[in-house]
Every structure is written in C-alpha cells, then in structure tokens.
C-alpha cells in the first residue's frame, strides 16, 4: 500500500522533497514510517494521519495522508 507524506519545517531535512509517497506492507505502523525516514526518537514531532493526531502504534492504511510537523512558535 502507498501512503502520502508531507514534511514541514525542520522535518524537511529527513527527505529530499517535502511531499512524497512511501510504500508499505499491510499492517505497517506509523513507527515503521518514522524509522524508515530515520527520524530519531528524541525529535519533537506532531504527526497527523488523515488530519487526526497519531502515535507510533497508529496503523497506516492505503492512501493515508501523513503530515509530520513541528510547531513553529516565532512571530
């Protein structure tokens, strides 16, 4: 199955593009996606899967939209 990924802000450094697709076996979890992008455990991120906050155990589904964000607090 394929999932759509968008990286925002300081997350951009984990891939060449800010928007791309990734292929996974059925049953893959968000932790698998984060591992493949080599996003370290200690990095503070908010991940939305189909617009809802997700955690590492969230199971990915075909066509899911995954947004990996960090809050930007400057003004």
């Amino acid at each position, binding site marked *: 199955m394929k999932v759509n990924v968008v990286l*925002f802000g300081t997350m951009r450094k984990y891939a060449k593009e800010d928007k791309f697709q990734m292929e996974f076996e059925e049953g893959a979890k968000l932790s698998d996606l984060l591992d493949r992008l080599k996003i370290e455990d200690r990095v503070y991120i908010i991940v939305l899967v189909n617009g809802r906050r997700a955690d590492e155990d969230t199971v990915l589904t075909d066509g899911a*939209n995954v947004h990996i964000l*960090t*809050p*930007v*607090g*400057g003004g």
Partner: protein
Amino acid sequence: MGRHTGDEGAARLRWQSHGREAATGLLRGVGDSEMLTNDERMRYSRQLVIPEIGEAGQEKLRVAKVLVVGAGGLGSPAAMYLAAAGVGTLGLVDSDVVDLSNLQRQILHGVNHLGLAKVESAKRALARLNPGVHVVPHRMTVTSENVSGLIEPYDVVVDAVDNLETRYVVNDACVKAGKPLIEAGVLRFDGMVLTVIPGEGPCYRCIFPVLPPPGAVPSCREAGIIGAVPGVVGSIEALEAIKVILGLGQPLVGRLLLFDGLAMTWREVNAARDPNCPACGGGRG
C-alpha cells in the same frame, strides 16, 4: 499626471457607488449618520468597489474590534493591514521595547522608535497610516490570569506572539470565550496559519495538544527568521480576520495552512477536532 488621472477615475466610481448606496439607504430608511464621510469614501474606494465589501462591509469593519497579540514580525503586517482596511478599534499587546534586532522583520517600528515601548511605537505608526482607527495599546505580558479580561472587549483575536507558551494561553482563552482566533507562527522560512472558530473546527490544542518541553522546539532567537516570512503570514492573518468580520469566503477553519518559503509551497492539512482536546474537547461547541 497618470496617477492624477487614475484618481479621478476612482472618484467617479466612488460617486457612482455613493449614488447607489444612497438610494438603497433611502429605501431602507437608513439615516445619513451611518454613511461614510467623503474622506472615507476616497480612502477605502478600492475596497468599496468590491461587491463582497461595499459600504455595508466597510461599516462592519468600522465597528469591529480586533486584538492583535504581539507587535512584532507577525503583528506588524497584521496590524498595518487591519488599520489600513479601516478596522475601527485595534488593540495591540506587547511588553517589549523596540530593539535594533527587531527592525529586520518588525516593519511597524523604525530607528526613531528604538527604546520605545512597541505598543506605543505601533500606535504612532498606525496613526500615521490611518488616523481614523482607534488604537488601544496594552503594554503587558499575557498570562492565564489576565488573558480573559484582555480579550473580553474584542470581537476577533489575532495571535502574533513570538513564543509557544503564550499561544496556548491565548488559544484556551478564546475557546473558553467563544471568540474567533487567527493563529499563526513562523520560523526560518516556514509559517503556519489556522483560524479557530470555537465550536466549528479544531483549536490549536486539537493539533498541538500540549506545550513542548523546554528546548524541544527552537525559537526565532535560536533558529532565526527572515522578515518576509512573517510578512506573508501576518498578512494572511489580517485577511482571515477581515473575512471573519465580514462573514466572507472560507476561513482556514479546520484547515492548517503550511507555508514553506524555501520550496515556495503551500500545503493544507484538513485537521479534525480532537474529542479529547484539553481546551475544546468533550464534544461541546
């Protein structure tokens, strides 16, 4: 010469518009006291001709009260465009004074105001831009103790603060008071915007539930910011506030807008309300 001719053209449009509105006013029995002055018709002529705005919209802007929290990189363009558009009452909150390191992005302030309170500097700059706007300076630090009294007199709140902590304070107070909030943040080349209409869409906490631990997320002081980014994002905040006041278009409710100034892309996340949100959860609204 060309400019002069252009202005005469605008004046003709202005008087045509006046004629239409006057006739409508007569039919509706609207008194002259509600009409714009000649100066205002000239000043706002370019937005009065927009069918969605017109004199009725201008009157809504005139009676609107908007609070801009933060008179820095985001607050500068937000406050300037709101004042220029004729928002009648503009509150400004900031505890800082103008510093030389601000001027690279905080375009409300200039070298002549170094050392002056930002809210006072902003008040003077906005008075030069549009003396018809009532600017209310609030020189203070926003806390969970003083925030509800601060936002109470205003119709719409624009969050333009320079730290994450205050975003949560402002978000929670707006959700509690049921006040529309235009929320935005920037860092380096990136920005995000979300319009919060309590009860209608997610609030800031629905997406970012808790304040990150100290040091987990860099600040502008640490990571930097290029001034044009808050220029773009703060301008969007002003436009969102104007849309909310006028009841126009589709505000960014439930749509987190992400701006990447390096890639020059806009991404939109359709974000849902979190039923367990610490601020707006519980299915109430």
